[in-house]
């Protein structure tokens, strides 16, 4: 049985009209019939940094795969006011930067440069612009010296940062990260936290790392069994021990 918390005291900014992302009643069944999303609705506004938490199998990754059209469910998704359809997939994909959990899946080119250039290149940008974007994206993750490195020579922490650069080079309006701190040692995790804090971009980040949530994200969305069960200020959500316990979460 899904557990719902209809009357959470949410004090989100009143002005948020979902100018970055609007998801309405999104439903999705996997081909084998297994239902993964049961009507998910939420909005993100310019400058939001939101954590998406919940137990494994809650539908977090499935939701993320919908945000730039890799999975197609029923319901509505709007990015920057543009409704996601098959025709505008390329545009949507350049606006939503989706970074997968495993950097070895995200970094599929032999060199760092080629990987960071992949996005802009496949957006159809001219070569000079691609180079500018790569330089800019690598600088943003503080990895400028790494352009000519081979991907397999990078540490896990470096791979994670380059992974983020591979979507920053598309200059997305929304950054969507799946488990960015998984598998990092404390120092690499710290570096990543600083990086995410300083990036001036709207983000939705799925994670199990509650300490990361507390430190970095003013807003938290809890998913469980394919539904959003809570959406509000991180401070308040983390104080609601009953809510956390009901969804298998710890305060961190």
């Amino acid at each position, binding site marked *: 049985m899904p557990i719902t918390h209809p009357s959470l005291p949410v004090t989100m900014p009143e002005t948020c009209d979902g100018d970055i992302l609007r998801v309405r009643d999104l439903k999705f069944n996997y081909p084998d019939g297994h239902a993964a999303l049961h009507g998910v609705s939420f909005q993100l506004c310019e400058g939001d940094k939101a954590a998406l938490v919940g137990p494994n199998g809650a539908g977090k990754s499935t939701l993320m795969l919908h945000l730039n059209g890799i999975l197609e469910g029923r319901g509505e998704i709007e990015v920057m006011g543009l409704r996601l359809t098959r025709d505008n997939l*390329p545009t949507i994909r350049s606006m939503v930067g989706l970074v*997968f959990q*495993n950097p*070895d899946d995200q970094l599929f080119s*032999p060199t760092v440069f080629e990987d960071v250039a992949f996005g802009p*290149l496949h957006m159809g940008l001219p*070569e000079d612009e691609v180079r500018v974007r790569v330089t800019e994206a690598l600088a943003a993750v503080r990895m400028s010296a790494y352009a000519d490195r*081979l991907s397999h020579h990078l540490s896990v922490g470096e791979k994670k940062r380059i992974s983020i650069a591979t979507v920053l080079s598309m200059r997305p309006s929304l950054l969507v990260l799946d488990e960015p701190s998984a598998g990092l040692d404390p120092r690499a995790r710290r570096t990543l936290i600083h990086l995410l804090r300083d990036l001036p971009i709207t983000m939705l980040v799925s994670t199990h790392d509650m300490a990361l949530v507390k430190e970095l994200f003013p807003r938290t969305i809890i998913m469980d069994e394919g539904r959003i069960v809570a959406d509000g200020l991180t401070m308040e959500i983390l104080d609601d021990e009953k809510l956390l316990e009901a969804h298998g979460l710890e305060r961190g």
Partner: protein
Amino acid sequence: MHANLFDRYHHTEGPLHRLEARVKVVLTVAFIVSNALLPDGAWTAFGLGWLLVLAANALSLLGLGFTLKRSLIALPFALAAISSIFSTPGNPLSSFPFLGMELIVTDAGLLRFASILVRSWLSVQAAILLVAVTTFPDLIHALEHLRAPKIITTVIAFLYRYLFVLSDEVIRLLRARQARSATLPPSVSPHFPRKWGERKRGVVWRAKVAGNMVGQLFLRSYERSDRIYNAMLARGYQGQIRTLHPHTLTRRDWTIGALTVLLILSLQLIGR
């Protein structure tokens, strides 16, 4: 696995490193073709060819003996060529019986055998040097520039990226197999008599374990290819791979390339 096990590039930054990759590929292939074209016993040309290899070694700042040390890799294959000693028509030197056959050693046969070894030895040194002074991604770009089909170069690029990742998985699988099978000598495991000792099992069983590992590796790889495909889609991939063309040929590249081609051609003149 430590990644450097598969790395062949050496960061010595010699003049040869700076030569454009395309030029290096063409020169290497030209040198190997030239070796194949030289007749048996063209010792002067072979010797000069070796000087060329030595010069290239020097220009790569890897030390004169760099390729020499690694050049024995083709040696096991020489076994196959030993029989050329007996198969080439020429003046018989001696003969002996072998498995019911009468094998005749001829002078031309010995000459051919020695020539095959030298050709192979020179060629493999050129190939060793090529990957020592060119990063593999640059080599792939060179193949693209030289009009190799894009789908093949792209598959090679993926292979290069993921051979490190998947060999790591293989190493883990092999370690797990070792941990499960090799640790319990029969005497200390009264509770698991026979059942644990892999040594007691037949070769078919061992092959089956290896085959299951291959199957497991395939499934993991297949699932990985799905995730990578998603990651590509998420960054705008629409079925066509695009690549930047970062390399241009300078006058220096042209000059060195042309000069070396002339040298290789003159080897041909000397050798015939």
